[in-house]
Every structure is written in C-alpha cells, then in structure tokens.
C-alpha cells in the first residue's frame, strides 16, 4: 500500500484491495477527560462480507455495493455511468443543479484553502482521499478524458490521467458518502466553489442512473415514505396511537389537558415535524404543543401519509425522490388551506422544503413556508409565554444545524431565545454560520449498517465532540449536568450515537435535546421541570 500522502486522483483507477488503511493514532486529539482515549482498531468487515461487498476505498462501507457478477456486468455499469455523467452535464436532464455544478467543476483552481475547513479531512489526520477537492478532481478527470473530444490523447499529455473502470466507480460512489455535505468548504473558498454540491451530484448520478444508493435513504427511506407515509414505517394508524399517547403523557407530566389538533382546515400553520419527534423524542413534539396551546397559536398536524413526516432524504441523493416528496407535502398543505407550513426542529427538512423546493414547485404549489425559530422567538422574547430562566440554570450550548444556519442564514432567533432563558448559555468555537457539522449530516445519522457507524463516530463526528468538550471544560465532570441544544432531529440522532460511543453521559453528564424542551422547562405555566435528565 502506498503512503497515504502520496495518493493522487490518478491512483483511483488502479486496482488495489484497499486504497488506504485508516490509522486511529493520527486522528484529531480530544481534550480532557479524553486525552488518553483509546479509539481501538477500525471495525473491519468480515471475510465473508469482503468477498461480496465493495470496500476498496478505505475498508468502510456506507452503501454495501455488491461486487459485479461478471466482467460484462462491470463493463455495462461503466458505460451506464458515462451515460449518466453526460446527463448530469446537460440542461435538459439536470435543470435543477447544472449551473452551480458547472461553476464549481470549471473554476476550482485547487488552491486547497478548503482543506482545513473540512471536519472529516482534519479529524481523520489529513487522510488524502478525504480532501474536499479529491472527489471533484476524480470526476473532472473522468469528464476530461472520457467525454471531451480528444480527451484520451490529451489526458496523459496533460498529466491528469485517470483510468475509468468498475473499481474507480465503486470507490467514487463510496467516497461520495465520506462527506456530510456541511459545505464549510464552499464557505471558505475564495471563489465559492461548492465541493459539497459536487459530492451530492455524484450521489445523484449513481442513484438516478445506476440505482446505486444507500438503502436507509432510498429503499427504506424515500420509497418507504411515499408508500407508507414515513420512512420510519409510521402509518396514519400508528400516528394516531402515538398522538393519543403523547396527549396522555403531557397530562401526566404537566397537568395540562391539551388536544393536539389534527387536519384542522384553515389553521394558520401546518406544523411538520420529523417523524423522529413522534417515535424517539416525543418530548419535542409535546413541547411544541404546550407552547402553542399556551400562546394561543392556531396550528394543526396532518394525518395524511407524508404530511406528518417532514423528512425528505431526496435532498441528499436524488432529485426525483426529492421532488416527489416535496410535491406531496405541498399538495397536503394546499388541501388543508393553511396560511403557512411551519417546519419544526429538523434541519434538512427546512432546506429541502424551502430553498430547494423552490427549484421544483410549479406556481400553484408555491405555498408559504417558514421556519419555527422566528415564531418561537416572537413568543418567548415578546412575552407571549412567561418564562423563569432560573429553572434553566445549568450550562447550555447551542449546536447549529448546517442546513438551518450555514445554508439558510437562520442564526439569531434561536440565540436570542437561549440568551433569555438560559443564564449559563455559552457559544462553541466556532459557531453560527462557521459551525461544525454534528457528523451525522446528509443522512449519515440514520445510516446504521455494517461498519459505517464506527467510521461516523470516530471520524465525522469527532470535531463536534471536541467542540462540545471544549465549551464545557469549566465544568466537565459528571457532577454538573450539561445540555447541548441541538434543534434538529438528525443532529439529535447523531448526538445520541456520538455521546453514547464516547460514554459522555456517564463520564461528563452531557445530555442533548431540542430548543423547545428548554423553553417549556422554563415556562411558569408548567409547574414541574420538563427536562428529564435521562440519556435516551
């Protein structure tokens, strides 16, 4: 195996069992009490899996691509890929993202300014293949050599050669799932090249043309959501059972008798939550219901399939699935005649249903859509609900979901709330639009197969875990309860795994949760503490 720093894009097409072996001794160092933390070995695939599944990038598998049955099948897939690549570069077949893709492909000067901004690259100990520019360069070389006239002659001459074969493709597909699409690279680029977008478009090519995608995002994700109503499998009958339980639970916990409105025509807001709030973090769903009830907000949930689950994993990998889900959701909002659709605490749903859906909605479906944070700010800061901040007198920090903050610029409303209700609120470094991803972005938090979670916990979430430890250093011991406010369902899923992996609840008493839970915890109308200091 070549020394890792010498890998070049041209090596991507060379046959090898595995391009790189990740070395935990090179990973980003963590502050106390983790200065002597032993990461152990990277979890490797079993010999049986290695025989069946492509793992020639770094020994990790996100997709689980089966090895082709014959050389003919491999050749056919290469031809399919080139066909898909041509489509990706034409207006008729890629009207959604062609312009930003071309601007990024054609203008990157490889100055590498973006490298240090990438949490995956830096956490891994500068693993060459994780450089933000690496995948774009592989794709660029393939385009130059295989799609441009005279490309094959010119490639060797120009010194930017690459061999396109099945191995190249299997590695490139996997490599497109070693980036959380956080877009910090695009933010620091002097000319705005968006390697996150290039990565997403590579995923799209593989999904739309070759049917190569991650099961949690596609078969058990968007496809299931369109069939059943939610990627979790939550059908309308299960939804009603959960809502009934949530109402009883609110009564038991707070003494408040609240009816959660369902399918109320003409309400001001159709509230759309990530299904995770129903199943794993019902306190979030309940907190929204309590706040809106006390403040007198006119709102409703939908009980129609897809209308009660705001997720849209199409954002991460496939335009067709993205459009199908967004259109279903918009039609449901139209049917309920609500004034606006309010997105709850879910980052990718914010982005998918607002700026990105703008690219696919016809005029008649262009329903008003908004984020929950400005509304919550109005209710808390203009005293439409009364709060007693002394109830939140413990260290609190805010994690900025990339899609909400960096991508959409919603920065201050959530902070103004926290400054008002949390006396020990403190900011991580960096934060706001310069935040670091939780490490679970672009669908990673729900990708639980094979050895991928091991990679996610050790590498993509590492920078964020370091930030969390850093911000709580003044009270890092388990005698002080601390709260990471993560107003995004996907980020919460990642924090559950990440803090669990590092045993941070036992060692440091670090809990994670949403924003509305903190608000309700401080509300004078709610007599008992709402936050249960119980890691789940």
């Amino acid at each position, binding site marked *: 195996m070549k020394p890792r720093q010498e890998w070049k894009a041209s090596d991507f097409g060379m046959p090898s069992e595995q391009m790189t072996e990740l070395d935990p001794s090179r990973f980003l160092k963590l502050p106390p009490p983790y200065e002597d933390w032993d990461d152990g070995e990277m979890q490797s695939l079993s010999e049986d899996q290695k025989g069946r599944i492509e793992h020639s990038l770094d020994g990790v598998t996100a997709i689980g691509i089966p090895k082709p049955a014959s050389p003919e099948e491999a050749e056919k897939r290469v031809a399919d890929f080139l066909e898909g690549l041509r489509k990706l570069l034409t207006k008729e077949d890629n009207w959604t993202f062609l312009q930003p893709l071309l601007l990024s492909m054609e203008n990157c000067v490889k100055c590498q300014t973006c490298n240090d901004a990438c949490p995956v690259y830096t956490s891994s100990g500068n693993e060459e293949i994780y450089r933000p520019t690496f995948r774009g360069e592989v794709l660029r070389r393939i385009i130059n050599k295989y799609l441009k006239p005279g490309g094959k002659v010119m490639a060797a001459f120009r010194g930017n050669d690459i061999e396109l074969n099945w191995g190249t493709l299997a590695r490139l597909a996997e490599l497109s799932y070693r980036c959380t699409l956080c877009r910090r690279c695009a933010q620091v680029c002097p000319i705005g090249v968006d390697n996150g977008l290039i990565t997403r478009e590579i995923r799209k090519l593989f999904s739309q043309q070759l049917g190569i995608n991650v099961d949690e995002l596609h078969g058990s994700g968007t496809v299931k959501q369109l069939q059943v109503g939610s990627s*979790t*499998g939550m059908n309308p009958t299960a939804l009603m059972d959960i809502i009934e339980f949530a109402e009883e639970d609110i009564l038991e916990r707070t003494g408040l008798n609240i009816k959660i409105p369902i399918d109320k025509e003409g309400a001001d807001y159709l509230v759309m939550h990530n299904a995770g709030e129903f199943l*794993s973090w019902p306190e979030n769903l309940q907190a929204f219901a309590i706040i809106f009830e006390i403040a007198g907000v006119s709102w409703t949930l939908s009980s129609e399939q897809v209308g009660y689950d705001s997720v849209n994993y199409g954002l991460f990998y496939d335009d067709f699935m993205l459009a199908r889900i967004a259109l279903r959701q918009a039609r449901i909002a139209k049917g309920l005649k609500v004034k606006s659709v309010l997105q709850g605490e879910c980052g990718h749903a914010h982005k998918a249903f607002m700026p990105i859906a703008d690219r696919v909605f016809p005029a008649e479906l262009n329903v008003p859509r908004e984020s929950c944070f400005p509304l919550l700010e109005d209710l808390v800061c203009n005293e439409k609900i009364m709060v007693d901040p002394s109830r939140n007198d413990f260290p609190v920090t805010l994690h900025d979901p990339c899609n909400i903050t960096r991508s959409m610029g919603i920065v201050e409303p959530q902070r103004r709330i926290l400054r008002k209700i949390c006396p020990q609120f403190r900011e991580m470094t960096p934060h706001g639009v310069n935040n670091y991803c939780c490490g679970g972005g672009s669908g990673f938090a*729900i990708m*639980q197969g094979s050895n991928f979670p091991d990679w996610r916990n050790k590498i993509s979430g590492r920078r964020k875990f370091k930030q969390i430890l850093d911000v709580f250093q003044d009270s890092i011991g388990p005698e002080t309860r601390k709260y990471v406010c993560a107003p995004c369902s996907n980020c919460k899923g990642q924090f559950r795994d990440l803090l669990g992996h590092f045993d941070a609840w036992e060692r440091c008493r670090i809990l994670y949760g949403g924003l509305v839970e903190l608000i309700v915890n401080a509300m004078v109308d709610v007599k008992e503490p709402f936050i249960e200091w119980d890691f789940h």
Partner: protein
Amino acid sequence: MPTQELGGKQVEVDEDGFIQTPEEWTEAVAADLAKTEGVAEMGEDHWKLVNYIRDYYQKFGIAPMVRKLCKETGFKLKYIYELFPSGPAKGACKVAGLPKPTGCV
C-alpha cells in the same frame, strides 16, 4: 442476502443480523438472536419486553416508541439496556423479529 442458523433452521438475515421474514420468527429463533445480542438466556422480563414489541408491531406495523415501551412494561430505559445491552431498537427489536429500524429514529 446472508443466512444464519437460528432456532435449528437457516434463516435469511440482513448484514446486521435482522431476520428478513417476520413469519420465520419462533421463540427458538428469538433465543438464538438474543445470543447474538449478548443475552445468554432469555428471562421472564426479556420475554415480557419482546412480546410487547411483537404485539405492537403486529398491530401497527412499527416498533413502539421507546417512551411508550417503558410505560407499558414498567421498565426504566436503563433496565432495558441491562436486559438488552445494545438497547431497545437494535437489541430488543431484533430479538422480537422486527426488521432493522429505519428513518430518523
């Protein structure tokens, strides 16, 4: 799709050992699945949990929310982790013969 010997027969499982056809589930299959999740022997409380999850799944097509699971069985989450070290979703649901949890849960 790999297969695994569970309860004295070959059963199709996914890459993480979740059985693929719920109809294949028997108590003997469950007992063998439990061994793969670090549970040497299924006790009364293990069965209480697994049976509740199975019943809920058969009625609603989905695993019960963890909060409801705790309330209905009277088990604290911490105790569920003692019963099934890999937790309710990955451990108990697998033993109950449910497919691997999907979506943001």
